[in-house]
């Protein structure tokens, strides 16, 4: 590597690391961004505009492929080239407590194929603990983070509508994508129950005059976006950071440990090139971890840093996507699709409706629904219909345009019994780096994991300060979901980016 003197090293190039790299290079720091995965441009390497009959096995994975991604439940034919095979970074779980972990290894991380929902938290989330007595409050309030939400939304582009709901603060929005027939049907049902169904707030460009092209409504967002309209750090923050001339991006670079000097300050990192297996050490004034929640925790544990409180890796909680409720809207049965309805990049959203004004008796916190409808390229519901023959075939055709689904978003509360540790049996990954053991009781559905490090002002009970700095190591920032004190029922990524931006701003003003 070139003998450049870097000011900052950022580990991981997903939502958290991408934002940190952007902020710090804009502030004039020389930034080295180390990403374990390869660089793949989603605008070129995708399976867009292909029909199932154009693909081998009609878009299904072969059994050999399925075996390689057994624990990575979101991997499929369309995204597996940016997903990580289980064997690449193994981990263990205690007997009878399986844990599935969706991991991407690529420049841009999970933002290459994420669900794009971009939602602000409110004080109902930040102060949930004082309201219901469970866990800890966040060390910040909505008013402090609101300007950073504005900043992130302007930068990445979020489509949505202003609704004035206390549990889901409005933001800086581009025009929302109109609801389809099915979402309108569901909305009418919701109104009767006093619930709101609003157009999804998604990180997709819908304005013609933005830094990235406007969405062309193909609906293939999950297969990586071929226009760059959907936000990923790979097409947005990273090129913008590179344009400052201050960023060096190094793909295929797996960080082993954060290196510390005698005073206990971070002096740099050690990493291995995944392709050549060559080892490197680099130095910088500040190290920023954005390797995703569990990977950043693993790095700190392996570095033996930041854990004087003993809280590191404790209180694992997660944002889960649980039950999927589907049904048919009778009025839509037999409707002939007038256009390619599946081109919607987001659909509808029913914000949390429990514990907003009134308090529920039997449970705390809440959940929300992501809603969707419209035809897609496969009538999966047909597998659940009884029978066969001409009548069956007719029924499939009738119901095909009438399908409506709601997916619940909930929170697994932070609990000390749920935690991660370095594998006590000494297991290592192919690069010789010690791996994790994950103890989680509800964790069948991990998708959007947050929280480990109880970010509180008191160093005895927390790992990070309110500006994401390690109490023990003042020039080490942790900017991903590892910093969340509770998972909330909301999709976390907008907040991860807002907090990462805020932490970097603060560090530039007051370097630790």
């Amino acid at each position, binding site marked *: 590597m070139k003998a450049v003197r870097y000011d900052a090293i950022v580990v991981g190039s997903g939502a958290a690391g991408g934002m940190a790299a952007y902020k710090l290079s804009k502030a004039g720091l020389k930034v080295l961004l180390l990403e374990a995965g390869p660089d793949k441009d989603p605008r070129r390497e995708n399976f867009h505009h292909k029909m199932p*009959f154009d693909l081998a096995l009609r878009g299904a994975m072969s059994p050999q492929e399925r075996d390689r991604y057994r624990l990575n439940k979101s991997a499929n034919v369309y995204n597996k080239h940016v997903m990580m095979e289980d064997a690449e970074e193994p981990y263990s779980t205690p007997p009878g407590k399986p844990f599935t972990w969706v991991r991407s290894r690529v420049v841009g991380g999970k933002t290459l194929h994420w669900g794009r929902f971009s939602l602000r938290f409110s004080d109902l989330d930040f102060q949930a603990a004082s309201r219901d007595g469970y866990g800890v409050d966040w060390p910040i309030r909505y008013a402090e983070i609101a300007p950073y939400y504005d900043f992130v939304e302007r930068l990445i582009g979020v489509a949505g509508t202003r609704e004035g709901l206390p549990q889901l603060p409005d933001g800086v929005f581009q025009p929302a994508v109109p609801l389809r027939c099915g979402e309108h049907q569901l909305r009418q049902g919701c109104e009767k129950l006093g619930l709101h169904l609003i157009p999804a707030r998604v990180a997709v460009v819908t304005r013609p005059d933005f830094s990235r092209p406007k969405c062309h409504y193909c609906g293939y967002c999950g297969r990586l976006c071929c226009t760059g309209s959907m936000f990923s750090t790979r097409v947005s923050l990273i090129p913008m950071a590179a344009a400052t001339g201050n960023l060096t991006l190094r793909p295929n670079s797996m960080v082993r440990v954060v290196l510390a000097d005698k005073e206990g300050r971070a002096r740099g990192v050690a990493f291995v090139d995944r392709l050549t297996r060559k080892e490197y050490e680099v130095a910088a004034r500040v190290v920023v971890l954005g390797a995703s929640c569990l990977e950043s925790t693993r790095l700190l544990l392996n570095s033996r840093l930041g854990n004087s409180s003993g809280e590191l890796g404790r209180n694992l909680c997660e944002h889960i996507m649980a039950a999927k409720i589907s049904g048919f809207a009778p009025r839509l049965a037999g409707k002939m699709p007038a256009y390619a309805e599946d081109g919607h990049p987001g659909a509808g959203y029913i914000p949390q409706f429990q514990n907003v004004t009134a308090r529920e008796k039997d449970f705390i916190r809440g959940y929300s629904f992501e809603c969707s409808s419209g035809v897609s*390229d496969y009538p999966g519901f047909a597998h659940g219909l009884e029978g066969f023959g001409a009548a069956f075939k007719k029924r499939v055709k009738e119901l095909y345009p009438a399908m409506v689904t709601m997916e619940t978003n909930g929170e697994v509360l932070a609990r000390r019994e749920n935690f991660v540790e370095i594998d006590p049996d000494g297991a290592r990954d192919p690069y010789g780096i010690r791996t994790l053991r994950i103890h989680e009781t509800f964790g069948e559905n991990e998708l959007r994991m947050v929280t480990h490090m109880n970010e509180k002002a008191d160093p005895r009970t927390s790992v990070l300060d309110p500006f994401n700095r390690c109490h023990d190591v003042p020039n080490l920032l942790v900017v991903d979901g590892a910093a969340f004190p509770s998972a909330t029922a909301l999709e976390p990524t907008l907040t991860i980016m807002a907090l990462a931006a805020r932490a970097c701003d603060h560090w530039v003003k007051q370097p630790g």
Partner: protein
Amino acid sequence: MRRREALGLVALPGLAAPAWKPDVLSEPQNRTVETLAELILPRTDTPGARDAQVNRYIDRMLKEGLDSAGRQAFLEGLAALDEQCAKRFGHAFVELAESRQVALLEEMSAARHPFFQQMKNLTLRGYYTSREGLLQELQYQGNRAYENYPGCTHPEHLK
């Protein structure tokens, strides 16, 4: 004709379409699969499973798409079906009258017979991912790009 003869060439039979042959299924098994698929999703005013060559899809899945347990279950189920038909009616499944075939499948469907379920699932996959099933039957219009997204275009849905 003349020209070819003049050039001293001989016509090659069947050059246009080399006959498809199953890789995993035997010829009789292939016929059974074809028959079953067509009973599950028959041709109506739109193409059926036979038109969509669902049997070819199933043969391909047996070769590359199913794990060994799935493949074994399928082939054993297929054999058991014929065995049963021989015992009960003295004929293989394909030789039975259609009404009898349908009655048999109705029995299996009601009992959620594992082989029937597997055969049905494969037939649905093969059919609805084919040109005939997706484009003709379901009239799927995907793969388009729009300047603006239409949303619901039915005023009657908003009432």
